[in-house]
């Protein structure tokens, strides 16, 4: 998975980013695209925790986890944070590559953006766990995540500025305005100093959006985990 992601990432930068930047009118599109690419990769890596849930259920690890002396809340929170951290470890070297390409202007902004990316990754992991527990079929989960991945990434500012999304279709623009991927991508851009074409004026707003996304999926994850898997409910 790591090698596949790395190949995808490098080809996106070396081919698509470079060539597409000649095709569009967006100022400094290459750096804009590379920063969005880091968020797309982080999102895809954080989703993977859901697939692990199915593997654990198949091998009986679920029952073992339930027998551990931790509360359900700690279990879900631990899985979300673990999934997010793991995604960061996967994506860390790729983010370093993109930082090398983009450069950092203000280290303090960057640290704040990085913190919000941690929350984003934890939130995506929580979402993945929540959906995995609700769906209970690895095939359906696989399909849903694929479709969701396509929709959530394309209806965000990971690849293009919000003004163009709104111009293309007002519904797309409305969805993109409230999409956590938009918040994460634009906060990352703000953190590295790509300030043209940002979707916000105050970075606190997207930060709050990401914090709410994280809190919602952690809370919902705890509730669903509790209700769905207790007493062998998974099967």
């Amino acid at each position, binding site marked *: 998975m790591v*090698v*596949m992601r790395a*190949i*995808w990432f490098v*080809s*996106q930068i*070396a*081919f*698509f980013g*470079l*060539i*597409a930047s*000649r*095709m*569009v*009118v*967006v100022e400094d599109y290459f750096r804009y695209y590379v920063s969005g690419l880091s968020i797309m990769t982080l999102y895809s890596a954080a989703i993977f925790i859901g697939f692990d849930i199915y593997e654990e259920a198949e091998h009986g690890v679920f029952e073992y986890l339930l027998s551990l002396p931790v509360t359900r809340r700690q279990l879900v929170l631990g899985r979300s944070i673990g999934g997010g951290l793991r995604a960061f470890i996967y994506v860390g070297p790729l983010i370093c590559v993109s930082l090398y390409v983009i450069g950092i202007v203000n280290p303090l902004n960057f640290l704040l953006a990085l913190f919000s990316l941690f929350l984003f990754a934890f939130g995506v992991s929580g979402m993945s766990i929540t959906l995995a527990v609700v769906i209970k079929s690895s*095939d*359906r989960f*696989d*399909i*849903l995540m*694929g*479709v969701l*991945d*396509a*929709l959530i990434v*394309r*209806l965000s500012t990971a*690849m*293009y500025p919000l003004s*163009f*999304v709104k*111009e*293309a*279709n007002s519904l*797309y623009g409305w969805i993109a305005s409230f999409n956590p991927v938009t918040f994460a991508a634009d906060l990352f851009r703000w953190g590295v100093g790509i300030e043209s074409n940002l979707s916000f004026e105050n970075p606190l707003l997207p930060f709050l959006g990401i914090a709410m996304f994280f809190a919602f999926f952690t809370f919902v994850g705890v509730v669903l985990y509790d209700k769905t898997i207790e007493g062998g409910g998974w099967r």
Partner: protein
Amino acid sequence: MRHIIHLLENDFRNFFRYKWWLVGLISMNLTDLFIMAIVYNRMLNPEIIQQIKSYFDFFAPGLTVTGLFASAFMIGREINMERRQEFHRYMLSLPMTRLELAFGRVLSGGLRGMVYMSPLLATCFAFIGFPTLMQFFTILIVLFFLAMGISGLSIAIAVSTTSLDKFVTARGLVYYFLFFCSSVFYPLSLIEQLGQEGKFPMILVAFAKVNPLSNASDLIRSFLLGTPSFSFEMIVSVSTFSAVFTILAAFAYIKLMERT
């Protein structure tokens, strides 16, 4: 021929076992077209607008070829799995010649690609316009050749890699190299321009020109959009790719399957 039909039946049954997965894949492709392409339409710089008019129209044929590529490549994954699970010994014991077995697998991979691609091609026609009957058959034949070549390429990779990880890595390399170093997503002129400016290796520019994905996409564009203009080189490039990889795959399948 009867034996090949049995193989086709078997491989198609396997293909449709993943029908929901296929629905998911088609919806992802359509998302690319109806969201990404529509937004890029608004972002095009004026020089490119003069050249391709609309990114949606430009991208739809490219997407058809991308879908064909992904689905025709699926046969490789199955063959790699058969090899790892030693199911290939059963296949080799079937009452058919090795050539029938090998050709049947390449053919079924190609035909599966054509089946998957057809709704994407239909979408392309519905939104861009319909070709003449002659052009339609030319498109179908060229895409069939391309699907056979891709199926052959995936089988050649599948039988020469021993683990799923190696297969997936090799597939990733081939996928992204062929996709991104082609005119599927952007006009060839942009790649040439970068090459002339020394920002892109000339060898990659040359590869993008002969890339069968570029030629198949440009062939559809030439018939539906009138640009780039049609040339026989497009057909020759795809046919050569198809011939080389169909023969290579059949040869590799026979030799490497018998070896283990």
